[in-house]
């Protein structure tokens, strides 16, 4: 997408202040093209980004920095039917998605 979003990282700073992401298991709901997840995933144990649009998941996979490949996965799903076991995550982020 042309243009630049949150170039000073105000959003990700606010997010990182909101909870302890260090080694946390994170579920991001509505991950889109992965823009937000890429900014905080480095500190986590792992991030699973769910997104209903396959096109967005493809964009996220293409844009994912190589050093985060082992830490982030993207799943085509919605929060109405989460394909995960109970108590699988420490943090859930509703990323512009509620």
């Amino acid at each position: 997408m042309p243009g630049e979003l949150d170039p000073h990282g105000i959003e990700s700073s606010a997010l990182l202040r909101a909870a302890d992401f260090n080694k946390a298991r994170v579920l991001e709901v509505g991950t889109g093209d992965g823009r937000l997840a890429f900014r905080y995933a480095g500190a986590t144990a792992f991030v699973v980004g769910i997104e209903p649009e396959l096109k967005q998941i493809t964009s996220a996979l293409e844009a994912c920095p190589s050093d985060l490949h082992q830490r982030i996965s993207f799943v085509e799903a919605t929060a109405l039917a989460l394909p995960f076991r109970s108590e699988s995550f420490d943090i859930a982020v509703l990323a512009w998605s509620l």
Partner: protein
Amino acid sequence: MVDALQEIWCALASDGTLIDLRPVPSQCPIEVVTPGSIVHVGEADASGMAADDEAADRAIRDAVEQGWFVLRRDTRFDFDFYWDSVHEKASFIDGSIRMKQAVPSYADLEKVHRDLSTRAQGVARIRCRRQTMLAVYCKASIETL
């Protein structure tokens, strides 16, 4: 939405945290930013999904009332969009379901951007500043329920 919050409640560990991050429906200032100045030129209307935002507020309120989550804190901050040209900005706004151009017209914005860009040796960007909320909830324990 409440069903989704219940699913998330199940997926979270017992001391888990839910973070609700989303833009707030509002008028968003449009500015032209150069190294030496910030010039306010108008507003974008970001109230396009007010009904959805109200439904989201209601869902999270219901989830709290049901005892699934406890609000810890609620903050707001500015989320900035930057574009190098009016064309870039127009592409974004026209493709957005949440925002639409209010004032000025793209032609007027183009004129201000061009003038300031000339004065600032080509370094002028268009900024739209959008208010965003971040609410933090902790998962309520079984004892709480």
